[in-house]
């Protein structure tokens, strides 16, 4: 399978699939020497969430962020001596992806280093490799963010099977919408988490959807239940609603992840994606795993949300096993993870 020498050098990882302009330098595919994340003010008058406009904001940020990531890693912009440049090519917002891909291609020519296209979702699955302890395969990984909620059985790097996913809203989207409804800020995940600290997670018994033996998720009904409950009980504390809502989301995420791991004979479970930064989810996933003698790999929060280091880690592996991409690399907004499975 080795079509390329083993990666030992420095890989630059570029990620611009959504709101974050993120660049990192990673050594050996495991050690992040720098990881710079510049977040767009999504709901400000600049930038914005529409693909084309998000792209404009990435365009302004990309080179300053590359320079910062190189500087922190002790490299210079003229000849950084990289082994390769890895870049997210999809899925994501088209205009946003294109900026990262175009920048990566230009730098690849300028520095005369190979280019590697990386699937954003595969990137998230590689965040576990940035941790000190190697993960034991097979692993069941819960990838949970504003745009995705999926359970992936990873039998080895590059070997993926999606065993469940959300049939409607992503978990992060439910956090955002419920936060806005409750009058909390954006993004909703951290805001709900903050508010929930002051509330009782058992105050309200919100539904845990799709306890049907499948590994799919549904959060649309939960969102409706929160709205219904809040309208009928105007005097109930917002903190209790936030805590109970968060408990319902975390319960179902943990329950299904552990069950999927046990049923598929996995040795470990892992978290990835922006919602994986939620403290309660992290804590409960570890507890759930240990109860079933599973290892739990919970990457640092900075490696869970969108970042360049995970893209560099996945890029290192891709390069080692499949060689570089050519300069005709494009942006693929609706690329599926399966297209990347071996």
């Amino acid at each position, binding site marked *: 399978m080795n079509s390329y020498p083993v990666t030992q050098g420095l890989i630059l990882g570029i990620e611009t699939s959504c709101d974050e302009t993120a660049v990192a330098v990673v050594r050996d595919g495991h050690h992040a020497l720098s990881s710079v994340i510049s977040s767009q003010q*999504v*709901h400000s*008058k600049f930038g*914005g*969430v*529409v*693909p*084309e*406009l998000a792209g404009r904001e990435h365009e302004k940020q990309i080179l300053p962020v590359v320079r910062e990531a190189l500087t922190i890693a002790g490299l210079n912009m003229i000849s950084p001596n990289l082994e390769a440049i890895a870049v997210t090519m999809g899925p994501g*917002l088209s205009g946003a992806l294109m900026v990262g891909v175009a920048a990566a291609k230009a730098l690849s020519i300028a520095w005369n280093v190979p280019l590697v296209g990386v699937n954003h979702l595969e990137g998230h699955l590689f965040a576990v490799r940035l941790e000190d302890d190697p993960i034991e395969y097979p692993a069941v990984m819960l990838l949970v963010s*504003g*745009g995705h909620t999926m359970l992936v059985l990873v039998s080895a790097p590059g070997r993926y099977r999606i065993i469940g996913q*959300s*049939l*409607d*809203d*992503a978990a*992060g*989207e439910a956090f*955002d*919408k419920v936060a*806005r*409804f409750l009058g909390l800020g954006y993004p909703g995940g951290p805001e709900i988490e903050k508010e929930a600290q002051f509330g009782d997670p058992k105050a309200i018994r919100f*539904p845990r959807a799709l306890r049907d033996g499948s590994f799919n998720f549904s959060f*649309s*009904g939960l*969102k*409706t*239940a*929160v*709205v*219904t*409950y809040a*309208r*009928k009980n105007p005097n109930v504390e917002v903190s209790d609603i936030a805590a109970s809502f968060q408990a319902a989301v975390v319960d179902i995420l943990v329950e299904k992840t552990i069950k999927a791991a046990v049923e598929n004979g996995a040795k470990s479970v892992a978290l990835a994606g922006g919602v994986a930064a939620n403290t309660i989810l992290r804590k409960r996933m570890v507890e759930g795993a240990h109860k079933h003698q599973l290892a739990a790999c919970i990457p640092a929060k900075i490696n869970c949300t969108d970042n360049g280091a995970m893209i560099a880690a996945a890029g290192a592996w891709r390069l080692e096993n499949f060689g570089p991409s050519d300069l005709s690399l494009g942006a693929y*907004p609706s690329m599926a993870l399966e297209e990347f499975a071996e």
Partner: protein
Amino acid sequence: MLRLVVNDVKQMQQLAQVISKHLQGGDLVVLTGDLGAGKTVFARSLLQALGVDQTVTSPTFVIMKNYRGKFPIEHVDIYRIDSLEELDVLGIPDLLEEGHFVVMEWGEKALGMFSESFLHITFERLEDDVSLEDEIAGQAPRFVSLDIVGSGFTGRRNQLENDITGHWGVAI
């Protein structure tokens, strides 16, 4: 304008089915209503009735999802959009012109924006004494209002209205 009572999720799916028969490429359907009022349930049923066989997931995060049904379909959600400039960039008039069918959720902000004619469907909760259990089970009723804005849908307007009133009668 028609105003109906739709009793549960199953009836909402039936309504989508009936309406779908009168739609064609180039049509715009705008859905409005509060969080959890039924927009997505309706949109999903409508897309399925229009021949989409993939799972229809929420377009909120990516703003716009493209499907292939009887004609090209754009499922748009402008929940996260804050400015007219952002809306403009989506290029919805061009897509309609090219024969794409567009269904837009959270269209409140955009109602004054379209020079095109559109079918405006509004979803409201009927009352607050429905139990949480019924709500979760999809057994809670909704008011649904339908209004054709502008001069479009000519020749189809009466048929659409008759077909709907034939199935449901009109509330209030």
